[in-house]
């Protein structure tokens, strides 16, 4: 099923309710959909458009702007090799060569067994730990070619299954706002007065 499951629709509605305007939930919902299917399907975009009240073309326009959304299936593990300055200075280029050799695919490709997609990536905010890579957005730091080999072997052997979920899963913990604790989102045009704690004084 490439539409959201019923359970995910419930989560989707919960997320939408947090925003003063439904369209704001679009990126989180695209993630939710990618988490479910590993990539973003056409049907999912149609459904998300319906959920937040925009056209499919708008969903598509937003989705294709962002690097993380994939519109075709990728390997079980997406390996993003950072190649920006700090990593490049510390040997990212050589590491990429090595990785291509090890996996037998060029950057951008997926191994025949569907296990790995190797990709160029831009700065991952771990520059002091160069060269770095991410497997399904989980970091590996100061990676040597030998480290890379053992990483691949471990992933193949299923040893890291606990730490690294399938492609699409980001945070394993979701924010949950308990109904009795949340303030609730209000459309901006429906807010006519300042917040209670200012006691009618202007802000600042």
């Amino acid at each position, binding site marked *: 099923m490439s539409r959201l499951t019923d359970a995910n629709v419930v989560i989707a509605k919960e997320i939408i309710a947090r925003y003063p305007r439904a369209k*704001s939930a679009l990126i989180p919902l695209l993630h939710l959909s990618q988490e479910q299917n590993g990539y973003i399907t056409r049907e999912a975009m149609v459904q998300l458009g319906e959920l937040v009240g925009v056209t499919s073309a708008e969903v598509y326009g937003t989705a294709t702007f962002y690097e993380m959304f994939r519109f075709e299936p990728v390997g079980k593990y997406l390996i993003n090799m950072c190649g920006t300055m700090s990593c490049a200075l510390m040997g990212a280029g050589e590491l990429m060569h090595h990785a291509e050799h090890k996996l037998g695919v060029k950057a951008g490709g997926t191994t025949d067994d569907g296990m790995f997609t190797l990709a160029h990536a831009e700065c991952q905010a771990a520059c002091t730990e160069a060269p770095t890579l991410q497997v399904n957005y989980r970091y590996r730091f100061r990676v040597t070619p030998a480290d890379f080999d053992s990483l691949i072997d471990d992933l193949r052997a299923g040893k890291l299954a606990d730490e690294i979920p399938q492609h699409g899963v980001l945070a394993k913990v979701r924010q949950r706002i308990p109904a009795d604790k949340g303030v609730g989102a209000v459309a901006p045009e429906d807010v006519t007065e300042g917040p209670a704690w200012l006691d009618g004084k202007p802000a*600042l």
Partner: protein
Amino acid sequence: MSSYPHAPGFVAGDRPKVVTSRFEYTDSFTIDRYLATDGYTAIRKALSKPAAEVHDEVKGATVLGRGGAGFPAGTKWGLTPQNVWPRYLVVNGDESEPGTYKDRLLMERDPHQLIEGCLIACYAAGLSQCFLYIRGEMALAQERVATALNEAYAAGYVGKNVLGSKFSVDIVLHWGAGAYVVGEETALIESLEGNRGMPRLKPPFFPAANGLYGQPTIVNNVETLANLPWLINNGVEAYTAIGTKTSPGTRMVAVSGHVKRPGVYEIINGITTFRDLLYGEEFCGGIRNGNSLKAFVPGGGSAPWFTPDQLDLPFEASQVGPAGSMLGSGAIMVMDETTDIPAAALTLTHFYAHESCGKCTPCREGGTWLERILTRVVNGTGTDADLQQLIEVGTSICPGDFPHASNEALGLAAVPFPYKMTTICFVGPSAYAPIHSALTLFRSEFEARVTKRITIPVTAVGVAQ
């Protein structure tokens, strides 16, 4: 290979720790540790005073923005129009500037400190909802912040009537999906509205007046907000006692590249010099393998480069700007003598060309053009004319003199920051910045790359049938 500790780098001695004080604990991200180390005492303190007073403290302390522009937070809050409701806080946790690495640590290792910072800002500035925008690729940061928010809601620190007061605020965790430009505040707002993350023009879209959903919106960097709990707990005097008058407090800087001990350090603002940082034993401990320093990028990938001539400058915007660069996001990338300068510049130009949102013509077309020419040059298939063309294209993005550092050996005087630009945001100019620096400071390396081919005039000749 390791998957977790390392950064921050070694921080010896009793330097003040405003934002990294809990980093020494392995459980620094839990609410228990936070509560055991003064956690959520600042918001209590804040709630006991009128909002305006809290705002005055932030203003008084001159908490400089840590996202890049270095604008004081308290002053920025004060720019919002009074009596326009609702108004929002958007936390910029999109950290993607090449070399920059600090916000992720703050979110992963001390999420409650950030949450408390958000609460203080919302209370002080009358902000009724907060969106915490975390870069998409940071799965662990999202997990830690989500957990912390869930704990904080459960304990009554966030949500309806915080700690039984009249103060109510929702903090919504939002995450991006991979686009550097979304770190720019107006693009961040577009993205948060569910749109393509293309920057808006300022004016008219100054977020303080016309931001999220067209409402007054404060956008602050993660580190900026993480400063607030300490400030409220310890007071303005204690805060301004650190650093200098114009650059008080500390700031986190990430030093990467060819140093012995790359890492993220909390340094004293305004006083610490690049030399202290790169060579000081308590920080990076010098250049790797005893090599010599060739150049360094002082403030994130967008910043014009410095050479050893500038090592003695302190972390003080009013000195670094006239010297031809900027402090930006606190990211220093160090290149030693072995560095292939044109290739290094290409990694950055490629980055900015790839990250262009596509809105402004000069950035969209010019960035890619620069990248293509430079790629030719680096591959050894460029020509002399290509070097000139790089400058011509760069000038279409940034007309007039482009800033650069002084250089004694080359007899160059500094051209001060900033530059003029034909684009809305800095992505376009940033694609040119490394090229301009590299070409200005290391032109011979480019010339060596360029095969000096003689252009042979081609006459149109009929094809024999």
